[in-house]
């Protein structure tokens, strides 16, 4: 692989790794941002849950603004910009799962997690497979 494609791939890999790492932090971190009470009394639980939505909303707005800013103000080269935009999107989706849908790796029901992970696998196979195959076909038709 020559230098340019390698830098290109590296960019994507780094963005993806950063996103996944942040995601793992989001899912696994025991509520540094919203402390858990041992016995979830009504009031405390209400406050905690409201906190969750507010934090999620703020996160999402920030991530959205960042992504749009990168494109609107042309902050970086197109290839990098795309990678970062996708990574920000992935991060925001995970934030939605965590703060709006209350899905985190520790507490959720086993079956829900199995379902999400399996769905992600299938989606990856189908979308990835489609893109690989169709791009290969296009390349061979050029």
């Amino acid at each position: 692989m020559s230098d340019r494609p390698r830098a290109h791939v590296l960019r994507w890999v780094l963005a993806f790794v950063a996103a996944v790492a942040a995601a793992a932090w989001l899912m696994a971190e025991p509520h540094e941002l919203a402390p858990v009470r041992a016995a979830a009394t009504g009031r405390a639980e209400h406050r905690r849950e409201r906190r969750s939505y507010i934090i999620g909303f703020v996160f999402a707005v920030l991530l959205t603004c960042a992504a749009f800013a990168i494109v609107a103000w042309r902050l970086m080269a197109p290839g990098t910009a795309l990678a970062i935009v996708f990574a920000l999107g992935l991060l925001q989706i995970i934030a939605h799962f965590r703060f709006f849908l209350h899905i985190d790796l520790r507490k959720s029901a086993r079956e829900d997690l199995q379902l999400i992970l399996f769905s992600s696998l299938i989606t990856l196979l189908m979308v990835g497979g489609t893109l690989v195959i169709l791009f290969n076909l296009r390349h061979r038709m050029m």
Partner: protein
Amino acid sequence: MSANEVIHAGLNLGATDPKTHEEAGSAIFGFWVFLMTDAVLFALLFANYGVLLSGTAGGPGPAAEFKLSSAFIETLLLLTSSFNFGMASLAMKHGSQPRLLQVWLLTTLLLGAGFLGMELHDFATMLSDGAAPSRSGFLSAFFALVSTHGLHVFAGCIWIIVMMVQIAVFGTDARVKINVLRLGLFWHFLDIIWVAIFSVVYLQGLIR
């Protein structure tokens, strides 16, 4: 005791209504499965978009037709509506009166309707520009993906209206609560799809 356990996706009623919480387990799981089928459907529409992105057939491409500002406003509208629904869910879980719940549902609905209105306006502009779905493969793919999402949001809005009527008629009994929980999953899910749409379609199309 499963009253405080998280037994399904989304907000769990937990100790505030243990009986309904128990019943919700299968109902919400089933709806979650349905959302996964919907997720695969959208994923394939995204893949289709990726395949047909270069199929502009000499017609208008993304840069010509997409507007960053309206995409941004639509995103904020939908995101805020998602947050509002979260507040509605909390009002239902912790509140004793349905009135607050109704207010939050109404604001969610208005924001969702605002989103749809802007989107339709965008489409109308594109159509008057000659960027119709029948113009090229790229435009077909764009309209298929974004309209499918829009149709889902529309269905969600109808559902909100139905729920508001049901809350007025039945109050927040078990079935109403479970239905609102499901609607919540649906609404948040649609916002997640929109994040993917603005990233893959609008931002990708406008990066220079």
